[in-house]
């Protein structure tokens, strides 16, 4: 099967810039479809790049970090902290006498900081009225579709310790 037409004996400029007006529409359409196919190739390469990145990205390791003393936060009180890096703001919430939850403070819609609303007992985002459940971080209202990343907490004596981040609630 012949994939491409035979190169014409005419020089390329004559082929691409024909003096016959009837051929002009073929040339411009051919050029345009060539451009579209190259764009499609670019998109495919983009997908390949994502695939290669996801194959080579390793599971991140999280530090073990003391967050707070258990009595420091009252029931239904919050404490802000940074985890796993000083740039990443998180929110700790005491939901009961002995229960604590912590989430990343970054809204999963467009990254505004969420806050705890005691009136509704939800984590709310002021930017586009998004809201998340305090129990599992799942989205309850507004544009966010993904749950807030959850900080894994363990209790060591009287100290709450963060040990990792769980992406799905």
């Amino acid at each position, binding site marked *: 099967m012949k994939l491409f037409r035979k190169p014409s004996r005419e020089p390329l400029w004559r082929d691409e810039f024909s003096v016959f007006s009837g051929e002009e529409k073929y040339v411009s*359409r051919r050029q345009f479809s060539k451009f579209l*196919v190259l764009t*499609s190739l670019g998109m495919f390469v983009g*997908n390949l790049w994502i695939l290669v990145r996801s194959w080579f990205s390793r599971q991140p390791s999280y530090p073990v970090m003391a967050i707070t003393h258990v009595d420091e936060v009252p029931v239904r009180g919050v404490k802000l902290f940074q985890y796993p890096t000083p740039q990443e703001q998180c929110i700790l919430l005491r939901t009961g006498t002995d229960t604590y939850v912590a989430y990343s403070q970054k809204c999963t819609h467009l990254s505004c900081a969420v806050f705890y609303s005691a009136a509704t007992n939800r984590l709310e985002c002021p930017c586009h009225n998004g809201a998340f459940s305090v129990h599992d971080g799942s989205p309850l209202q507004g544009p966010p579709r993904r749950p807030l990343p959850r900080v894994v907490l363990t209790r060591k004596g009287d100290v709450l310790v963060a040990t990792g981040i769980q992406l799905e609630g």
Partner: protein
Amino acid sequence: MEQKTSQSATRSVTAIDGAMALIVILLIVQIWLVSATLETYLAGHHETALPGTIISGAIFLACFGLYLFIERIDAESHKP
């Protein structure tokens, strides 16, 4: 004779237009696919990368096939 030639020229331009419209539609789907795969990848979900790449590759091949079709019609129209 001349009328026949102009008729076949119109037909081939229509075929090229149809193929180009299909390429544009496929490209729009592919652009959506790349942005959706990127979004899920950045959200930490890596399982969509492989199916996304396979579908994107299939769309590229379809576009390339349509391009070859355009080339062929173009070559035929150049035949004396």
